[in-house]
């Protein structure tokens, strides 16, 4: 349970065994290799070039897989992520060694084809623009650059707007009455422009051009070819077809590779493993013949790893205890009830030097607090059944996913429990439905009490839960100090605070006014209250004397002690902070009630029933989502700030062994700590 004990391991081996030893360690997945410092005898192997190559290859395979996904998408459903990775034998990985250049070429080919398709598409786009520009001229059977013959001048170009032949001739006659003969052809016309061909005697060229310009004449953009437009169009279309064909062929060639997707994935995984080994190889020291590996290994893995290494290689192994002040990497192990919150703990921090694994005590309160905040039995059942079904249906699920689902499964159970106690099933849906549609009010009685009707009672209960939570944190503080044999610290930092806060609470409970505010139906006898007040005063004096005990100077010490006592206000705000249990619990219930009332507004008829069903489904889905988020965030907060504040700082680093961290396939007999 809890933090697994770690040992230091040193492996001395022959240099020629470097690769197989690293492969073996990777498959065990239970040694974290340390980065050693080179000295005058041992040097480090320069792996940067191999590493760059492998990373380049991996990027290419990754790109090829993305390209394949674009042209031949894989059938994927949401549930696939629950199924977990497929298992593959070690042999398939070993076979990769011989086949990888073939697959690597395939990845390169896929990437090449994809680039080619992009080039073709760009070229085709350009051709299309050309064709579009030439289409209005397609009826012209001479080149666009045609300027005229020896005795004639030709004008080929556009006029703005739609112009008729007669209209144009009339305008020209008006502008240049002196010109006798001008021949004009309308090639094509649209609303935007009219394409014309005009021919005149060479001597009139200047006059005609001037007249045409006055009408807005513009020559078409210069084209490289001096073929007639129709021929140019035909040529471009031909090119376009060839390119389209090529791009189609490239596409179908890529799609043809879809069957090899699995091989590429395998290659990707193989490269991932290789890169991890290479990175580790950079941590090792070597002389001409000898290889030196140093790292951490969990104690219980030793009996598995050591004999296996000894039987396969010529090695010398040394196992030793880490030094007392050494920062050892942390590997947690807990049972199935506690394990799910390890993820939440990791998102805060792993236990630092001398700290206990708080997962066990944290998990119990985590589930309870979460349930209190969501506090709707139906929502809880949905969570528990949903997560339970997924866990049951997909036994091969990834470990991290399974932990998360299991956490929400337990949170769901707790939510159901508290929801039933507080009588909330989708808010008040039973009474709303029975009143609206059956005219017979039925209400689900809470097993305990309804927070909506008696918020003061719920507030007191929330704070009681808070006090228990905080005291559990103090208890953990004692355990931690006792384990480190710091009995004095345990007494000063935890027991005194127990006495002070506990004494103050009991004293408060003996005051009539306080009891009346909280609406309690009992009162602590005055005599006990007096004893409690004395206990609290003694504890307070103790705290003033000891909180600054690291200072030698008595004046400083007392000043620090007084500041330490000021922390009692911290306890007050910590306890008040648990009022969020009431607020968030009510939020779920009240919003659920609003949804039910909105749904029931349609009354008892067909339309009303349909309205109710729609509002019910959408509304409760949203409410569940929002409050799930709220409950998660604030449970984390109460755990991190109020609870951990009493004993836990974290700061440890995670145990990250050399192992198999593949993306697509799972190696059989893989022992994964991830």
């Amino acid at each position, binding site marked *: 349970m809890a933090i697994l004990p770690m040992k230091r391991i040193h492996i001395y081996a022959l240099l020629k065994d470097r690769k197989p030893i690293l492969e073996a360690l990777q498959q065990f997945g239970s040694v974290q290799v340390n980065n050693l410092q080179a000295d005058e005898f041992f040097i480090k192997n320069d792996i940067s070039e191999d590493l760059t190559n492998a990373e380049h290859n991996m990027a290419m395979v990754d790109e090829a897989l993305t390209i394949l996904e674009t042209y031949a998408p894989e059938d994927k459903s949401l549930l696939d992520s629950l199924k977990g990775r497929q298992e593959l034998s070690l042999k398939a990985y070993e076979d990769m060694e011989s086949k990888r250049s073939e697959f690597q070429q395939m990845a390169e080919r896929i990437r090449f084809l994809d680039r080619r398709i992009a080039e073709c598409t760009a070229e085709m786009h350009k051709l299309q623009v050309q064709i579009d520009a030439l289409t209005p001229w397609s009826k012209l059977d001479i080149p666009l650059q045609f300027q005229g013959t020896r005795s004639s001048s030709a004008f080929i170009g556009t006029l703005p707007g739609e112009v008729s032949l007669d209209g144009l001739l009339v305008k020209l006659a008006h502008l240049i009455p002196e010109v006798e003969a001008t021949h004009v052809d309308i090639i094509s016309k649209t609303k935007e422009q009219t394409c014309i061909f005009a021919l005149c005697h060479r001597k009139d060229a200047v006059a005609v051009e001037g007249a045409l310009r006055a009408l807005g004449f513009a020559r078409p953009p210069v084209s490289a070819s001096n073929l007639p437009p129709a021929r140019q169009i035909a040529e471009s279309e031909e090119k376009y077809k060839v390119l389209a064909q090529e791009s189609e062929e490239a596409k179908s060639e890529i799609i043809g590779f879809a069957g090899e997707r699995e091989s590429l994935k395998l290659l990707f995984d193989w490269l991932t493993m290789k890169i991890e080994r290479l990175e580790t190889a950079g941590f090792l020291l070597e002389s001409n013949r000898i290889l030196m590996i140093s790292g951490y290994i969990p104690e219980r893995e030793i009996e598995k790893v050591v004999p296996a290494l000894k039987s396969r290689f010529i090695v010398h192994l040394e196992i030793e205890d880490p030094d007392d002040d050494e920062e050892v990497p942390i590997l947690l192990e807990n049972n199935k009830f506690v394990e799910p919150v390890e993820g939440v703990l990791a998102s805060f921090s792993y236990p630092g030097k001398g700290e206990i694994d708080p997962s066990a005590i944290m998990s119990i309160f985590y589930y309870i607090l979460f349930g209190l905040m969501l506090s709707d039995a139906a929502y809880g059942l949905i969570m528990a059944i949903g997560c339970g079904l997924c866990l049951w249906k997909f036994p091969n699920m990834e470990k991290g996913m399974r932990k998360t689902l299991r956490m929400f499964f337990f949170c769901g159970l707790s939510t159901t429990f508290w929801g039933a106690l507080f009588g909330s099933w989708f808010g008040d849906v039973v009474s709303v439905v029975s009143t609206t549609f059956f005219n017979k009010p039925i209400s689900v009685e809470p097993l305990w009490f309804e927070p909506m009707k008696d918020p003061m009672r719920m507030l007191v209960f929330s704070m009681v839960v808070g006090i228990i939570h905080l005291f559990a944190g103090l208890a953990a503080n004692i355990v931690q100090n006792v384990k480190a044999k710091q009995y004095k610290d345990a007494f000063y930092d935890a027991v005194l605070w127990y006495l002070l806060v506990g004494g103050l609470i009991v004293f408060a409970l003996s005051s009539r006014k306080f009891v009346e505010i909280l609406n309690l139906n009992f009162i602590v006898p005055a005599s006990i209250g007096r004893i409690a007040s004395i206990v609290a005063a003694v504890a307070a004096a103790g705290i003033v004397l000891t909180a600054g005990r690291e200072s030698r100077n008595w004046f400083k010490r007392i000043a620090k002690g007084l500041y330490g006592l000021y922390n009692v206000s911290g306890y007050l705000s910590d306890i008040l902070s648990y*009022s*969020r249990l009431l*607020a968030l619990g009510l*939020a779920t219930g009240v*919003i659920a009630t*609003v949804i039910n009332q909105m749904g029931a507004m349609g009354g008892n008829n067909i339309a009303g029933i349909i309205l109710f069903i729609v509002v019910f489904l959408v509304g409760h889905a949203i409410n569940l989502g*929002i409050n799930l988020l*709220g409950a998660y965030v604030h449970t984390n907060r109460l755990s991190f700030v109020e609870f951990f504040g009493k004993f836990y700082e974290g700061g440890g680093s995670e145990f990250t062994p050399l192992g198999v961290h593949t993306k697509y396939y799972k190696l059989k007999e893989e022992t994964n700590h991830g």
Partner: protein
Amino acid sequence: MDNLGMFFALSGAVLAALMAGIGSAIAVGMAGEAAAGVVTDDPSKFGKVLILQLLPGTQGIYGLLIAFLTLTQIGVLGGTSDISLVKGLLYFVSCMPMAIVGLWSALRQARASIASIALVAKRPDQAGKAIIFPAMVETYAILALLISILAVTGIGGLNI
């Protein structure tokens, strides 16, 4: 002028929903802009930044909660609606903590959220801690909610 009490009570309820709602809308919008920026760079962070974006959205819900609670108490949603002027004013002030703190804390929480989104963008492994910073601000919205709830539910029993 007999129903002036009702007018004040309803104004309080509406203001709670209105101000807290406006605060959350602006806040979620601001955080959303930051979150979208992060997702352009790395779509895999969507889940993490979405949570951070949603955090300042709760004030609006609390405002709705207080508004609804008040509406049921004063009988707008069925029941008797006989509210004296004094009680009406009491309901009005009871709604104010949620309305004002809701608006302000949502805006402040948005800034903490945006900072946390930037944190997650650079160090996605610290998402757990990043959530705590905006959640700290929310504490005060929750405290305001608490006082508003206690006050609104308590007024009905007063003998004035």
